[in-house]
């Protein structure tokens, strides 16, 4: 790891500002790790503290991966034909069985991803995979098949820190995307403009940089991009493709889909659009347009090397500016995965935690629409804030209270369970007696899952070191970007100190 770092360093050294040459403080390192990963531990923070900005960013980028470390659910390696009910011939039982199967597989898939986020040696890889999931949105609600959602996730991770152009080309022919944005319905003579529109508006240029005519013409270029319904793999159907001349953004020719994507990539607006979105994810809610333009040029000149953009963002003065610290709302995944990682909790069963993020408004593999989760302040409303607090309270309640709280917690979980099942299968949420019984069984299992997590608060404080009188201050320093609204009492029980800090509003921010 040190070797590539030494090679990379000189290349970036020029751009480093004076402040960038100074070693990162503990607070700087925590800020960097909480923005690029999930809930950094004291040990993780200490590893990075003392590096320069350049070194720290290089280290994190050098550690990124292209594959998951967690073995996926067994059904992801099924090579047989896809089994799903077709058309009017499918019997109600067949449809029902399929739906239940997909709900079950979908839950398992969500649990798998949460598990990967917990175990990965490179949180930045998962953060970027999630970032692209929210950029190139597809949702199981429409795609239905959990298998295709899994394959898309693999593609996103493979390219998460590669080249944006490769990712764009891969996603355009990703089967889940082909279904999600109706490319499969896009045929010569009867074009479906869904993908052509969104690829310009949401994936590359952004609104205002193309016209309706460009959408119509681009849609023709993508005709015939379809999927094989037996294998679930991408297929190009020449008979359905429109081979006529098209004009997209001023370029004319017998353009196909790949040509259109390259036209989009050649536009500076695309690099700026992507940079702006990365800025909002990592730096602040309000991008600095001059900086965006500067970084976007480097992104485009590097043939859209995502690492180049991240290196620039993560070493910028804006990234470390005091006024940008603690100003981003943690996503539900940040909160749930970050808390578990932070406190060294590794639940055996991860599905309940995927259900918990769904209850807080982030149902993995199920963004609300093609625009993705709006994020930012929109993560927090009365419902989701109480879901967050109830979740944290549940994790850090004293053990004797857990016993008492058992039945009391059941209704809370009922909400999340229904949020999840309804999210995957809307309206089908069963209201009949057997459905209700299933729902209750499900929510009890979820509740048991949450209660099984083990946390030894004494050991945690011991690992931080220091006097017991400094416990609230030491804990706040690891956990919070700024001072809590209310200081915990040093004389309180260790678990109570943690509980108070995580219930503080400051814990919702990163």
């Amino acid at each position: 790891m040190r070797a590539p770092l030494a090679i990379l360093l000189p290349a970036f050294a020029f751009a480093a500002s004076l402040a960038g040459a100074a070693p990162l403080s503990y607070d700087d390192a925590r800020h960097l790790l909480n923005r690029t990963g999930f809930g950094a531990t004291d040990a993780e923070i200490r590893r990075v503290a003392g590096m320069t900005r350049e070194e720290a960013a290089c280290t994190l980028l050098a550690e990124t991966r292209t594959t998951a470390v967690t073995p996926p659910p067994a059904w992801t390696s099924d090579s047989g034909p896809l089994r799903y009910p077709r058309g009017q011939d499918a019997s109600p039982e067949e449809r029902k069985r399929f739906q239940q199967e997909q709900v079950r597989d979908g839950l398992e898939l969500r649990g798998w991803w949460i598990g990967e986020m917990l175990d990965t040696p490179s949180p930045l890889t998962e953060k970027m995979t999630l970032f692209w999931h929210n950029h190139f949105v597809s949702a199981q609600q429409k795609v239905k098949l959990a298998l295709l959602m899994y394959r898309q996730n693999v593609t996103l991770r493979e390219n998460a820190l590669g080249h944006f152009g490769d990712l764009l080309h891969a996603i355009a022919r990703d089967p889940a995307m082909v279904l999600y944005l109706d490319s499969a319905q896009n045929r010569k003579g009867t074009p479906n403009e869904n993908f052509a529109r969104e690829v310009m508006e949401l994936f590359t240029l952004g609104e205002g940089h193309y016209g309706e005519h460009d959408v119509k013409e681009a849609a023709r270029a993508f005709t015939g991009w379809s999927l094989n319904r037996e294998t679930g793999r991408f297929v190009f159907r020449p008979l359905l493709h429109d081979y006529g001349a098209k004009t997209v953004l001023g370029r004319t020719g017998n353009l196909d889909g790949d040509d259109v994507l390259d036209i989009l990539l050649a536009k500076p607006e695309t690099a700026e659009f992507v940079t702006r979105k990365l800025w909002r994810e990592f730096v602040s809610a309000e991008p600095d347009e001059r900086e965006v333009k500067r970084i976007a040029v480097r992104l485009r000149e590097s043939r859209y090397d995502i690492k180049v953009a991240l290196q620039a963002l993560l070493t910028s003065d804006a990234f470390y500016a005091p006024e940008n610290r603690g100003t981003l709302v943690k996503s539900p995944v940040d909160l749930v995965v970050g808390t578990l990682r932070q406190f060294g909790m590794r639940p055996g069963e991860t599905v309940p935690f995927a259900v918990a993020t769904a209850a807080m408004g982030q149902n993995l593999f199920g963004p609300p629409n093609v625009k993705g989760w709006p994020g930012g302040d929109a993560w927090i409303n009365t419902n989701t804030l109480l879901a967050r607090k109830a979740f944290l309270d549940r994790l850090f309640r004293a053990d004797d209270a857990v016993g008492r709280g058992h039945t009391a917690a059941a209704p809370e979980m009922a909400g999340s369970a229904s949020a999840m099942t309804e999210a995957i299968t809307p309206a089908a949420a069963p209201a009949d007696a057997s459905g209700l019984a299933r729902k209750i069984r499900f929510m009890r299992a979820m509740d048991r899952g949450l209660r099984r997590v083990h946390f030894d608060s004494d050991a945690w404080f011991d690992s931080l070191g220091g006097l017991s009188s400094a416990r609230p201050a030491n804990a706040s320093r690891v956990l919070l970007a700024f001072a809590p609204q209310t200081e915990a009492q040093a004389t309180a029980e260790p678990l109570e100190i943690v509980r108070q800090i995580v219930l503080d509003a400051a814990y919702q921010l990163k």
Partner: protein
Amino acid sequence: MDRRNFVKLAAAAALTPRLAFGLAAPGAGYRNLLVLIELKGGNDGLNTLVPYADPAYHALRPKLAIARDRVVQLSESVGLHPALEPLAALWKRRELAVLQGVGYPDPNLSHFRSIEIWDTASKSDEYLQEGWLTRTFGVAPTPKEFAADGVIVGSPDLGPLAGGGTRAIALATTEQFLRQARLAVPEGKATNKALQHILKVEGDILQAASHLKADYALSTEFPEGPFGNAIKTASQVIANRAGVAVVRVTLPGFDTHSGQAATQARLLGELAGGVTALRSALLELGRWNDTLVLSYAEFGRRPKENLSGGTDHGTSSVHFVLGGRVAGGLYGEQPALDRLSGDGNPAHAIDFRSVYATVLERWWGISSAGPLGGRFATLPILRA
């Protein structure tokens, strides 16, 4: 509510300081309560308001058609599903308006997308983040001392109250909400915008919790089951003294792709029982005359039944408006079953945004063009 009535209301409000506050935002008559009932999954309109005299109906529904002698006749051509019999009394009192063919142009047949269109009052190809009520309360805020702008009962998603700075409370039961609300922190100092937002939401939770009670004594008997419980919770919420502009309850399960007859009969029975209990509770609270109850759903179902004794996703549907000041009767048009679109669906007769415009303009006295992103004709469904 016509202009004359509104002036009367404003004059009365001037006498009570509580309301005068609300009227600082011009025209917000939020003492008028709105209760939304979401028929989640897409209720089949054609078997809710049955065109029993139409031969095309019987041809499209060889198995599911409801015979003339079973419907609750409302006119010479249409009648209610037999499970809605409890609503007959309201119909006779002219407190029930039935809206036929409520929908929108270029309908989307996905549950998710279509309910989003309804909740945000967007065009079919437009993506908006904020609910139509969120936008409304943005331009015409409710009185500050209200317990909340709106309360969502029994569903985690805020629907028409999503996004923005709305004071929307979602709760399963009042007891649970009050228990969880103890985790909210009363005060704080905001050092940045995100923190400010969180502290505001904590404040909203505490404000609602300080006004809601879980044990308001009502002599109304509520039906058993989840929907009856939701109606009971809604009634408890409405009983709070501080006020709330909107309450939404949800009745799920209408996605009847197979075996529709039994499922829909049960659900419509629950709906009728719940609405009847709600009316009784509101009469007890003296609120029936200033309450408007409105049903809505993402879409209706296809006129032609499928081979599984069910119906697939359709477009426009029938909706109900109830209340002490409702001008009862039939509105809109029966779907023209002999002139269905290529995918077998009827055209809509009433744009759902006209229903919203009616709520805004005539029930609350608010200009609807801003919140709804355009002008939509109001419906004469309220008595002067």
